[in-house]
């Protein structure tokens, strides 16, 4: 199981859960599983071409997937994935 941290703005879609544990061997696989469990979440993360939106970052542990293999970045047992969208409140 991979632990995925859900940011506050998306918790409406995860029934308030801030953390979900799901199976998957890559970020793409995890997003697809998330979408199955929580319909609507994928379009908040990815644009129409399927790329991660430019104001949303996804990290495997401390690493931004944009600087690794993007959506193909592999994940393994024990990894923690964080979804971090830009927020602007002050």
């Amino acid at each position, binding site marked *: 199981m991979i632990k995925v941290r859900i940011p*506050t703005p998306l918790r409406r879609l995860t029934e308030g859960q801030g953390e979900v544990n799901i199976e998957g061997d890559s970020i793409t696989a995890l997003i697809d599983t998330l979408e199955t469990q929580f319909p609507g979440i994928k379009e908040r993360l990815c644009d129409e071409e399927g790329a991660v939106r430019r104001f949303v970052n996804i990290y495997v542990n401390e690493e931004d997937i944009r600087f690794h293999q993007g959506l193909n970045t592999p994940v393994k047992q024990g990894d923690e994935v964080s979804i971090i969208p*830009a927020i*602007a409140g002050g």
Partner: protein
Amino acid sequence: MAFTDEQLQRYSRQILLKEVGGKGQKKIADARVFLIGAGGLGSPSALYLASAGVGTLGIIDDDVVDLSNLQRQVLHSTKTINHPKVDSAEATISKMNPDVKVIKHVGRLNASNILDIIKDYDYILDGSDNFPTRFLVNDAAFFLKKTLISGSIFRFEGQLTTLKPHFTDEGPVPCYRCLYPEPPPPGLVPSCQEAGVLGVLAGTIGILQAAEALKEILGIGESLAGRLLIYDALDMSFRRVKVPKNPNCLLCGPSPTIKELLDYEISCTLPPPGSNTNNTPSA
């Protein structure tokens, strides 16, 4: 200028710290810090920077104090409702520490005024409440080589990072666009006004911004540059993730396409029907 006995007493608890001392206190007194917004984040930042003895605090805000601000904007009070926030801020700061020179700017930052307004400051604390300002401030700070300490809040969650791409001594350092290349289209991300925010969250992040600013002024400790701190008040977790410099950053990369300031559309609410804004389709 030497410190008076009163000043030595006022700042004694931090002068006692060997990392500060008289020399450090002088650096704090000489520092010029610019606060964007006298709201949820700017209030605690301003109070702690002023109490620490920061010599010059510039503050910009275009708003007046509203009753609904007082749950988190601790610079203001019931008595200053309907007063310009910068006036209310100045009054609170001078009462607490008359050593601090407050420079007030009433208005909003835009591509034509920002460079002139921030050029005389050393450090900028972004506590604004919208994406267009955040991208504008990042770009202006980059062009003028100013250190930017960016804090933002949303409901129970806060983010903090220090941006100083002009510091290259210890390797490449990112700007805000390395972290988030573009703002979301208006309306996709609700503002605090619409979403609500826990007042103490603003306090936590604003004070952390002040802490980063003091570290930058004093040149001590490990900067948050190259890292993003994420605070979740609900599970009381602080997490840090890496923010590498984007080698293809459109602003601070080697082949920039952003060579001048851009005004993104300011909108805190849903865009009018049929409008197509800023590159990314709405979800």
